[in-house]
């Protein structure tokens, strides 16, 4: 016997409290003089003795209560042989219900196999049925009821999720540890190779689990699938929209497949592609003529294979007009406008329409109408405009500031009010220019912009980077691009200008993706995606939208959230394929297409040797017991002690009530 937390035994010192009070109470019983005891005879002592016994019983109950509490918190345990636990063995039948089980009659075969396993067990044996996809779902309690088990097996239907043997092993290990029972695990599955975890160690089931595998697909069946589709989530010019689909042919010979682009149920374009043996082919559709608003699109192939569910890939597209972008510059300087506009119009998906304005004219524009505003090396802004601009950024707007000689003359950055540290020119006698040496490729602005090292910077206007994220630095460590939050909005500061004077950046190929990605990032266009994978989560509300209702309409046009979830849930998990409509706060609607994980399309099973190895490593024979003969496992006595504590508390209450009742009666 031992204790998990022996330091709690110090609580035993508390027994001194009732002992002290009871002794004190006894001492307080001072003798009282009485005229004559002739009517108090020896027989009266029986009553006193009875009362004293009750008094001692009360003391004992209180002591027991304190001792048991201290013991319970100390967490006592006794070591029990594992053999006693293994007597309570459990037959756990797990049926794979992942997306790949939709292939042919795999699901039906799996049900029959599971029923056969359950039918072969002894009638008195405990059994439990579970279903496996991304997680292990227990469908019944451990029971001997054959009808309940059979009904659970028959109720299993394939889902759109992928299966994970690693998750299965983790869940079974946890169950074996918590129940202490020996588990005979029967896994009925198509044993997909892609369901295996990265490391074989993740398949370890523990010493009390015996694994029996029941494959329902022995060979790698050929399968064609639309593996992925790259399509813009938002389209501003249908003629420039590109849809790229990857068609994979798995486990079979090469074949010619017809690929169709479908929008709102209408086939827009069809192409034929040659898919090589065990390879992939790419198809590109060069336009996506869809109406304004959200459109349900998909890329479809005619495969006629045994898993038709992956022959189409759904994606949602929103068509909208380009958004306005306010470009404020000095009236005498128009070069930056020229380069910036050219870059914006050259973008792959021009999402913004540039609205130029000189600093003097800026007052005639309302900043709140522009999702993104660019201040290109401006010295002075109209006061009212600057105030409105500040408020707009605080409320969630986005601003790109380019620094240059005019900004340096101002001394402080507009909006941010950051002090400009210096206006540095590269000396013509020494280094004639500087280059960017440290670039953060993880930032959306720089993700697609390569070749920064070739850009020459002749003049920079640096500021303190405090509170901002430096995403590019010059060779001398000067912050070149800083991304800062401002209220609910964002500000990106580029410490040079776009005029091809302070630098030659506008002439470099990296300028166009930089401008496109930066304004898209600031305009939050990159946060949307055209499709997600089953099992993905979506954030339903930001910190500013707490308490506002969010609606999720599922693939069957039914509400996927309860009323309480609609008001409180932070995230939503997509568990089925199809189109989901999200109606967020502030009437922002969104459509998301969800597809099954394409790893499920690979129907190749795990090699037999690997399965045999897995089975052999989970034979339910603990190594220690083989070595020592009797493995002992700590058995926690906490619950039993707490029951005794409750009993002692009841006894104490009962005796104390009897003890005190006399005083009440007499008084």
């Amino acid at each position, binding site marked *: 016997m031992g204790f998990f937390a022996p330091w709690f035994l110090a609580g035993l010192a508390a027994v001194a409290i009732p002992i002290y009070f009871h002794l004190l109470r006894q001492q307080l*019983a*001072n*003798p*009282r*003089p*009485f*005229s*004559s*005891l*002739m*009517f*108090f005879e020896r*027989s*009266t*002592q029986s*009553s*006193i003795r009875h*009362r004293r016994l009750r008094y001692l019983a009360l003391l004992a109950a209180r002591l027991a209560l304190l001792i048991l509490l201290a013991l319970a918190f100390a967490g006592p345990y006794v070591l029990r042989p594992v053999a006693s636990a293994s007597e309570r063995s459990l037959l756990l039948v797990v049926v794979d219900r992942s997306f790949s089980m939709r292939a042919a009659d795999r699901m039906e075969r799996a049900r029959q196999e599971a029923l056969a396993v359950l039918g072969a067990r002894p009638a008195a044996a405990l059994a439990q049925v579970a279903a496996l996809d991304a997680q292990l779902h227990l469908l019944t309690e451990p029971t001997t009821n054959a009808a309940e088990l059979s009904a659970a097996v028959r109720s299993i239907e394939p889902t759109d999720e992928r299966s994970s043997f690693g998750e299965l092993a983790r869940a079974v290990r946890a169950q074996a540890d918590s129940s202490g029972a020996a588990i005979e695990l029967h896994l009925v599955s198509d044993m997909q190779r892609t369901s295996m975890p990265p490391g074989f160690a993740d398949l370890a089931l523990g010493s009390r689990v015996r694994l029996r595998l029941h494959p329902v697909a022995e060979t790698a069946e050929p399968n064609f699938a639309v593996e992925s589709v790259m399509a813009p989530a938002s389209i501003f010019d249908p003629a420039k929209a590109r849809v790229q689909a990857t068609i994979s042919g798995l486990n079979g010979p090469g074949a010619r497949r017809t690929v169709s682009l479908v929008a709102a149920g209408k086939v827009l374009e069809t192409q034929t592609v040659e898919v090589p043996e065990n390879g992939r082919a790419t198809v590109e559709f060069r336009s996506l003529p869809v109406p304004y608003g959200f459109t349900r699109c998909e890329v479809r192939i005619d495969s006629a294979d045994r898993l038709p569910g992956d022959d189409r890939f759904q994606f949602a597209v929103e068509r909208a007009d380009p958004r306005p972008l306010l470009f404020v510059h000095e009236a005498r300087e128009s070069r930056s406008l020229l380069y910036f506009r050219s870059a914006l119009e050259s973008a792959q998906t021009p999402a913004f329409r540039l609205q130029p304005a000189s600093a003097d004219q800026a007052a005639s524009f309302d900043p709140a109408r522009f999702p993104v505003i660019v201040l290109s090396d401006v010295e002075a802004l109209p006061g009212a405009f600057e105030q409105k601009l500040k408020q707009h950024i605080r409320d969630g707007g986005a601003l790109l500031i380019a620094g240059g000689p005019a900004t340096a003359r101002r001394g402080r950055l507009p909006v941010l009010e950051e002090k400009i540290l210096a206006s540095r020119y590269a000396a013509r006698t020494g280094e004639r220019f500087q280059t960017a040496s440290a670039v953060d490729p993880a930032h959306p602005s720089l993700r697609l912009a390569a070749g920064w090292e070739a850009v020459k910077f002749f003049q920079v206007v640096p500021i303190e980077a405090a509170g901002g994220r430096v995403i590019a630095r010059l060779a001398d460590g000067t912050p070149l691009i800083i991304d800062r939050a401002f209220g609910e909005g964002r500000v990106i500061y580029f410490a040079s200008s776009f005029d091809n004077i302070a630098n030659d950046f506008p002439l470099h190929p990296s300028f166009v993706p930089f401008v496109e990605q930066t304004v898209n990032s600031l305009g939050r266009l990159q946060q949307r995606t055209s499709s997600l994978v089953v099992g993905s989560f979506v954030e339903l509300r930001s910190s500013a939208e707490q308490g506002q209702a969010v609606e999720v309409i599922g693939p069957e046009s039914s509400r996927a959230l309860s009323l309480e979830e609609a008001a409180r849930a932070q995230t939503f998990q997509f568990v089925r394929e199809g189109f989901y409509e999200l109606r967020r706060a502030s009437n922002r609607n969104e459509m998301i297409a969800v597809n099954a994980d394409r790893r499920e399309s690979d129907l190749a099973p795990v090699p037999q040797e690997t399965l045999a190895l897995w089975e052999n490593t989970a034979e339910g024979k603990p190594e220690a017991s083989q070595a020592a003969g009797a493995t002992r496992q700590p058995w926690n006595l906490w619950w039993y002690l707490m029951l005794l504590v409750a009993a002692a508390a009841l006894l104490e209450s009962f005796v104390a009530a009897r003890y005190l009742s*006399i*005083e009440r009666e*007499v*008084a």
Partner: protein
Amino acid sequence: MLQRFLDPKILASISGLDLVAKTVVDGFVAGLHRSPDFGFSQEFAEYRAYTPGDDLRHVDWNVFARTERCYLKRYRGETNTQLTLMLDASASMGYTSHGITKLDYARFLAASLCHLAGQQRDAAGLIVFDDEIRQYVRPSTRQGQLSRLLHAINEAEARARTDFAKPFLHFQQFLRRRGIVGVISDLFERPETVIKTVEPLRFRGNELILFHVLDPEEISPRLGEPAILVDMETGRRLEVSPEYARTEYKRRIEDHLRELRERALAAGVDYFLLPTDRPLDAALREYLTIRQGRM
């Protein structure tokens, strides 16, 4: 208007037994209807014409002076009654639960009776006893007798144990004339023993009255919790539970009181229970009223 019933606690606050006795007696006498038979004896009865041979001392010379006829003043008793009070001063008489001890109460009672007897020209005497006779004042009608009695009563202190046998044996030696004997005690003795001890006095023609003084707590003890009780006479200790005091003890003390009353009645002894929380004058009044009915 004179107060009718005097709280023993108020009496205890009066200094001087003579004043206490006067207060009590005046109080209850004032409350009685005038009656020719009240008191102990020596009451005027009638006038009778003188016949030769009558004692000239009994001639009422006042009537003779007014009428020139000789009349004898006749009294109910031939001689003055002798009242002897036996005051128990054992340790148990010192018990109190509400401020006035049983001995205090007994003192007031004895003083009142002595005062009453003095008013009627009866000889009053006193024996203070516990297990011995501690004080003896011979019955007399002499001048200053009341003061001597009150002094002796005042001197009585609760001590030692009660033993009826020895004091009564001695008392019988002192008793030369028949009269009234009043025993004031808490009578913590078996009723049979008490009656057997006092009965011989009755055989000698004395009228015997038992004044049983008890504290209310002794009749109906109230214990909130188990208590260790110490016998005031023997020093014996006993742990007593409230249940016992509430049930068994009460039954026993009631049996004791009933047996005392019945045995006293059977032996022709007057028995009168006086709880110490009862107004003394009211108790005396009730007692004398009952006695009148019997006389």
